[in-house]
């Protein structure tokens, strides 16, 4: 275990010094600061106001930028080390591949999750200081959702990193995965729905197995438990399960996706030539 923690600790220290981490933290911290400066907490849209409104905006932006940030900063972690011969030297010491791989994942997870969490904590602390009501249920839901979302994309990134030899190709694949999950599935499913070729339930099911989509729906479910803003689609979801079960699935499912891809990545890392 000491080697696992050692790898995680050193990866964390290395990441904290990296320029990408500074940019990454500034983006999420800056978003919160920008919302306060812009007076988002004083505005009211669709019945949401105060810190709830701010957190809703934060989560809507996070859903777009968090996955691509995680993918592009993580996807080169193993493929980059392989590319520039770091792996060749570091793995010449008696460390098991399991400790190296999972240690890297733990270190990288802490690096990518803490800034998004801290940004929310800053919002809550500042909001409390200003005397706003603290929407604890929304805060805890988002903490869980961001945890699950970070796990999903970290797992996918390590999976890509494990089989791609060049970090440029890894970046290309990461970008494709992001754009595919973010936009293409939506566009493709909307056009299929318009053509009435497939059963609506099947189309909604396909949409819901996309971790980004389930994150989006879960994020609005606490403000809008009936999911009225989604229109008739809400019936398909809430007829199949209660809102509580849906929230649990929206946290558990991306977590499972992340673990599945991370494990698959480890198997490839273990079975393939290391350098």
């Amino acid at each position, binding site marked *: 275990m000491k080697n696992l923690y050692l790898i995680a600790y050193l990866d964390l220290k290395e990441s904290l010094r990296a320029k990408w981490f500074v940019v990454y933290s500034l983006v999420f911290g800056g978003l919160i600061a920008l919302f306060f400066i812009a007076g988002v907490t004083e505005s009211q849209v669709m019945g949401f106001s105060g810190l709830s409104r701010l957190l809703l905006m934060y989560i809507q932006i996070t859903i777009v930028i968090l996955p691509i940030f995680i993918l592009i900063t993580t996807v080169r972690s193993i493929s980059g080390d392989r590319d*520039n011969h*770091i792996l060749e030297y*570091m793995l*010449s010491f*008696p460390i098991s591949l399991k400790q190296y791989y999972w240690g890297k994942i733990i270190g990288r997870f802490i690096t990518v999750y803490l800034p998004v969490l801290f940004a929310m904590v800053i919002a809550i602390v500042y909001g409390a200081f200003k005397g706003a009501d603290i929407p604890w249920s929304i805060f805890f839901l988002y903490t869980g959702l961001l945890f699950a979302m970070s796990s999903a994309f970290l797992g996918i990134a390590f999976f890509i990193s494990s089989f791609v030899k060049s970090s440029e190709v890894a970046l290309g694949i990461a970008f494709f995965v992001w754009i595919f999950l973010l936009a293409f599935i939506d566009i493709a499913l909307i056009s299929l729905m318009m053509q009435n070729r497939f059963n609506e339930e099947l189309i909604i099911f396909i949409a819901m197995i996309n971790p980004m989509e389930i994150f989006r729906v879960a994020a609005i479910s606490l403000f809008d438990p009936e999911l009225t803003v989604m229109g008739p689609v809400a019936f398909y979801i809430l007829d199949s399960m209660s809102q509580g079960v849906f929230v649990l699935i929206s946290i558990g499912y991306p977590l499972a996706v992340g673990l599945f891809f991370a494990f698959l990545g480890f198997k490839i890392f273990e079975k393939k030539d*290391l350098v």
Partner: protein
Amino acid sequence: MIKIDNLTKKFGAHISLDNVSCEFNKNESIALMGANGAGKTTLIRSILGYYHPDEGSVAINGLDPIKHRINVLQEISFVPQLPPPIKLNIDELIQYISISANVDKEKIMHYANEMKLDLKANLNKSFFKLSGGMKQKLLIAISLAKKSTIIIYDEPTANLDPKARDDFYRLLKQNEEEKVLLFVTHRLEEVKDLVNRQIYMDLGKVVSDEKI
């Protein structure tokens, strides 16, 4: 100590090692030579357990370096031809090595000192920001401090000035007993006082293997 048996390694259609068999035993210092693409690095990486052989096997003290990587790598010190751009600082790199391979930090400091490398002044500097010679000296110091029974050097003196080369050979002379020393080199004259066996590879095969 190292037994390579009918080892074949292919990368796509290219055969990098073609049915190579050889043994390296205690108290042997071997110069492994050959043109670029002869298969020297592939052979070393196979010994380190980085490559899955297409055919044949590698055994270090009877152990498969892939299945028993921890036990095998405890016995091996390795210095690559080009120091990798590791972003950890020197202190963190030494911490990684001392914890993972149970190497005494003081020993690394001692050998760095012998190589005329002032580590204490550079502990907070990133490894990749050191000069080529300083990086190579540190990797050599680590390889000697590790107290392995197999030491593999891939062109270890490429970045060293003549004085540092002398220091390196002097330290090796003091540490070569009961060990296998494997040098990948293009310049036999540099290591001729250290080696007692010379292997020449070409197109993935061992074409000559003689004791000196």
